[in-house]
């Protein structure tokens, strides 16, 4: 699991050719890309196309990412652009209800998409926050969020923590989660997905040689 500084290190390592670092970046942000394709109700094959495009573009841009911590926003915005263009292209070919100016059948409601995008951002911030916790805190929170849920007795057996202290420790872990840079940024409204930026931020005034 990785913190912010680790992301900067991973980006640097990947841009020097480290496949392992690239895989770690993928593992961390792939769920964000997938959630965006789900928010736009893309078909599986469209989602695969968008996913591949986003990662190929990131490979091209690795050397130009001036602020690796902006990576989640870059990924989110790039995925959004690709998805929204597909949705718009689809709408042009769909019959439109003249009363509502909405596509008939299979139409994506903008408000529903927006709500799902916000949820995708929040979930990425929570996963990032979790990665920024110290290992013991992270382990307890992961045990507490397993499906099906574990009893405190099981968690006690796994962690060596007395049953009676799991509740208070849980509260402290969640407080520290709220206090991680990722979740603090989220609560302050500086989510990774401010609806600007993306790959346009990375546009260079002069062409880059690879």
């Amino acid at each position, binding site marked *: 699991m990785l913190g912010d500084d680790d992301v900067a290190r991973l980006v640097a390592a990947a841009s020097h050719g480290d496949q392992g670092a690239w895989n770690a970046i993928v593992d961390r942000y*792939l769920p964000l890309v997938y959630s965006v394709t789900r928010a736009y109700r893309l078909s599986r094959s469209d989602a695969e196309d968008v996913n591949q495009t986003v990662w190929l573009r990131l490979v091209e841009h690795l050397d130009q990412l001036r602020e690796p911590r902006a990576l989640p926003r870059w990924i989110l915005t790039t995925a959004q652009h690709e998805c929204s263009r597909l949705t718009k292209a689809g709408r042009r070919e769909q019959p439109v209800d003249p009363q509502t100016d909405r596509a008939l059948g299979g139409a994506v409601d903008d408000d529903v998409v927006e709500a799902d995008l916000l949820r995708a951002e929040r979930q990425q911030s929570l996963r990032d926050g979790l990665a920024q916790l110290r290992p013991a805190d992270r382990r307890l929170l992961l045990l507490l969020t397993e*499906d099906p849920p574990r009893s405190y007795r099981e968690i006690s057996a796994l962690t060596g923590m007395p049953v009676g202290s799991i509740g208070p420790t*849980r509260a402290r872990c969640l407080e520290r989660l709220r206090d991680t840079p990722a979740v603090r940024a989220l609560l302050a409204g500086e989510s990774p997905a401010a609806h600007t930026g993306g790959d346009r931020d990375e546009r260079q005034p002069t062409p880059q040689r690879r």
Partner: protein
Amino acid sequence: MSANPRHNGDDPLLAELAEAQDAARAVPESMRVAARAAFAWRTVDEELELLVLAHDSALAAGPAGVRDVPSDGPRALTFQGAALSVEIEVGADVMGQLVPPQPGRVTLSGTREVLAETAADALGCFRLPRPEGGPVRLVCRTDDAAVTTGWIRL
């Protein structure tokens, strides 16, 4: 204080954390494989200059995405390079021009294979079939320049 009231209570925060973990587990493995494999393109064709996407009419309407009004007419894109730029319009076909105008060879490639290849005429004009779905790029070679666009879906 919180943008999301679910983060104020412990139980709602823990519930959303569980949802975040579930969402991560739901990603199809094929997408992970494709994302990891993209890295193999990092050093391919290093001799080609990577053009900068300077204009894309599909993005020009605004960054908000879902609320953009669809623009009419074919999508127009400009890829800018130091000595050679490429302008294309994507309608039923891909119509393009090398700028400054000059003859050359233009190749349309997917990640697995070359999809089409054509000559640009004396004015730099070329026409290619419009590809389906997946990411592609255009590689253009003239007497003086060898350039590639970034990966893009047309």
